[in-house]
C-alpha cells in the first residue's frame, strides 16, 4: 500500500497573535496535523512575497501566512498591508498555475489556538488532495533553471504598483 502523501506547509506566524495561538494550541494539547512548520515573524507585514516564493521553490507544498485579526494588529495595520500584498501575490501565483489552496492567509488571535489548529488541518487536507506542488515541473517546466529571475521581479513590480 502506498503511504499517503504528507504535504509540507511553511507557516509564517506573527509574534503577537498567531504564534501565540499556536503556543496556546500546544499548551491546550489540541492535536492537529504536524504538516505545518512555523516560522516566527514580528508581524505578518514582514512577510515579503519572495519568502512565499522561496518556500514554494524550496519544496514546500503550501504556505500559510497567519496574522492578527484586522483591527487587532499589534502594529496597528501591518496585517492590512499583508492582505493587500497577499491579494496581488495570489494573482501572480494563479498565473504560474499554482492552485488557490496552496497559499492561504488566515487570522488567529492569541486566544484562538483552536482556529489556528483547524486552519492547519483544513489546509493540510486541501493540499493532500491536490498532491505535491512539483515547482520544478509546474513553474519551471522541466527543471532547466529558466525563469528564476522572472519569478521574482513581477512581485516587486506589482508592489510598486500597489504602493504607488
Amino acid at each position: 500500500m502506498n503511504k499517503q502523501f504528507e504535504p509540507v506547509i511553511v507557516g509564517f506566524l506573527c509574534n503577537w497573535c498567531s504564534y501565540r495561538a499556536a503556543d496556546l494550541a500546544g499548551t491546550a494539547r489540541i492535536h492537529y496535523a504536524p504538516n505545518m512548520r512555523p516560522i516566527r515573524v514580528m508581524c505578518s507585514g514582514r512577510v515579503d512575497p519572495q519568502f512565499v516564493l522561496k518556500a514554494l521553490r524550496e519544496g514546500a507544498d503550501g504556505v500559510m501566512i497567519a496574522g492578527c485579526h484586522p483591527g487587532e494588529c499589534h502594529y496597528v495595520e501591518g496585517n492590512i498591508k499583508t492582505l493587500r500584498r497577499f491579494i496581488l501575490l495570489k494573482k501572480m501565483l494563479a498565473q504560474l498555475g499554482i492552485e488557490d489552496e496552496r497559499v492561504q492567509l488566515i487570522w488567529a488571535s492569541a486566544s484562538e489556538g483552536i482556529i489556528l489548529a483547524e486552519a492547519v488541518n483544513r489546509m493540510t487536507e486541501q493540499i493532500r488532495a491536490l498532491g505535491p506542488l512539483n515547482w520544478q515541473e509546474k513553474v519551471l517546466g522541466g527543471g532547466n533553471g529558466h525563469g528564476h529571475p522572472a519569478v521574482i521581479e513581477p512581485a516587486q513590480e506589482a508592489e510598486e504598483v500597489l504602493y504607488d
Partner: protein
Amino acid sequence: MSEKVGVYICHCGTNIAKTVDVEEVALWAGEQDHVDVAREYKFMCSSLGQELIEEDIKEKGLTKIVVASCSPHMHEKTFRTACVRGGLNPFMFEMANIREHDSWTTDDREAATLKAKALTKAAIERVIHNQPLEPLPVEINPNTLVVGGGIAGISAALELAEAGNHVYLVEREPSIGGHMAQLDKTFPTLDCSACILTPKMVDVGQHPNITLLTYSEVEAVGGYLGNFDVTVRKKARYVDEEHCTGCGICIEKCPYKVVDNVFEAGLGARKVIYRPFPQAVPKYPVIDTENCVYFQRGKCKACQIFCPTDPNSIDFEQQDEILQIVVGNIILATGFDLFDVSQIPQYGYGRLANVFTSLEFERMVNASGPTDGKIVLRDLETPPESVVIIHCVGSRDENYHKYCSKVCCMYSLKFAHLIHERLPEAEVYNCYIDMRTPGKGYEEFYNRLLEEGTHFIRGKVAEVSDVARIEEEEGKLIVQVADTLISKQRRIPVDMVILSPAMEARNDSQEVSQLFRMGCDFDGFFVERHPKLDPVATMTEGIYIAGACQGPKDVPDTVSQGAAAAARVASFISRGTVMMEPIRASINQELCSGCRICNTMCPYNAIVFHEDSNVSEVITALCQGCGTCVAACPSGIITGAHFTNDQLLAQIEGILWDVRSNLDLVPVE
C-alpha cells in the same frame, strides 16, 4: 568566518521526549554543518542545563547557540542570559519551539521527530546569520493612565499615587465608584459596600498625585511603553468645576425627573441635573442635555437661577475639552456589563413585573436606594411572601456564555440572607446548578444560609410564568424547575423572582482593545500575557489590565489585580529606563532610491524623507520593529534587525531541509 554552533535538545521531562525522539534529533543535529556540539538534556531551563551552555561556550569556543525546547515566549530570556554569562551577545541565540508547536500537538512520534528536526535545522541555519545587537534603552515617563474608576482602577491609582507617582484616572461616568458603589452589602462579611468604598473614593478625589478626569473618555492612544500619547475627551458637564461648591441646590431646584437607568438600574428616578449618588466623587453635578428642557426647548434655566455661587457655576455654553497627556504606562480597569436577561424570554423579565435583576435587587435593599432599603414588589409597596433566586442566568449556558461568572452563587446567597433578615416570614428558594463557594469564608457563609432556612433546589429553572394550574398558583409567579436531588419536576408559586445574570465583557471591549492595541478573547474579555504567571500584563508592553475587564471576579480579586498592576507599573517607573529589544528597521542611505514606498507603510510615522538628499530614513526611537517596510522595499535595502532577509531565507531553507534535498535546483541568491 566559520561558526561553531552548539545545539541543545530539551526533553522537558517527558513533555517533549514522550513524542519526539530527542536522542535521535540530537545525534542528527551533531552531523549538521557548522554544528560543533549537540546534546540532549532533561531540563535545559534548569540551572544545570544553562550551565551546560555556559561551559560549552567557554570551553569549546562556541559562537552561536540553538536550544530546541519550548516557546521563546517561555524561555528565550533565560537562554539569552545564559549566553551572556558564557560571554556571547544575547542575540547569538536561537530557539526552536518543539514543545508547544510540536510534541504537544500530535501523538505521531515519527512525524513529531521529523518536525522537530525541521524546526531545529531552521534555527541552526538562521542562527548562523544572527548578528550581535545591543538592547535599546527607553526612558519611562513616570506618569500613569488608569482607565476606569471602579474599585480596580481606584486600587491601582491609589497604590501608584501613594508611592509618589502621578496618575491620570479617567472615568466615563460622572462619578468614580463603578459597580461596587451600587451594591448594598458585600459577601461574605456583609460589610456595607459604600462604607468601605467611599473612603477610597474620597482619597482618590483629594490625592495630590491623582488627576481625576470623570465624565471623560480616551479617544486616541499613540506611542509605546514609556511614552504613550493619550487623547482624552472631557465631556461638558455644563457645570464650572472651579466655582461649584457641590451644594446641590441646582439639583433640588431642577423641576424635571427622569428614570435613572444607570445607577438605580431603572428602579428609581433622578433629576435632569444630577449627581449619580450622594457620595459621588467628584461632587460636581452634570446636566443630562438629552432630557434638559433648556437644552431641548431653550427655557427653564432653574439651575442657573438658583445657583448661589459667584460667579455662577452653571455654564450652558461649556464645550467638551480635548486633553493631551503623556504617560509611561497604562492600566485598563474598564469593568464589566451584566448580561441582558431579556435575552432569555422564558424567565419573563420585562414581561412579568415581579421578575427583577440582581442589580435592581441590590439597589432595592440599599438603604440609600429608591425604596429606602425595603424589599417590595414592583408596586413599591407590597413585601413579597416568597422569593426565588435563579443562579446562572446566561452563565454556564451553551446558548449564551459558557463560562461561570464566579460571583453569582455568593451574591445570590447574600440576597437570601438579606431577605431573611428584612422579611423573616418570607420563604426563600435558591435554584442553582452547582453551588460554587470557593474563597475565604465563602463556604462558611453557605453553611450559615443552610441554617437560616433557605430552600436550596439543585436544578436549572425551565420557565417563570404567571399561568396558574391550581388555586395556590393564582396571582403568583410560577417557577418550573427540575429538582435533580429528588428527581422531580417542581412548580414553585412565589411573589418575586430575582435573576442572577452573567458578568460579561463591556459591549465596547472590542473597540477598547483595538484602541489600546491589545487582545480580546472569544467572550470579549481582555487577554493577559500569561494566564497563570502574568495575569495583569498584556501582549503590549506598558499596558496592564485589572479587574473584571479580564474576566469575572469578585471585589477582593479585583482589588488584588489593581494593586498588582500598579506594582508592575511602579517597578518600571522606579527603574526609569528599560531595555527594549533592538528589533528595529534601518535604511541603507547609500542605496535608497528615494521611492518613498516605505514612508506610507509605517504606522508610527517613523520613516522620514529627506528632500535634499532624496533618501528615506528610519527614526529608531519611533520604530517598533514590525518589519512591514522591510518587506515593502523594492530595492531590498531596509534591514529589519534580528529579522533580516538573510536570517529568514536561511530559516526557510532549513525548515525545508528534508524536501529540499530532493530538488535539483540552481541556487538563486
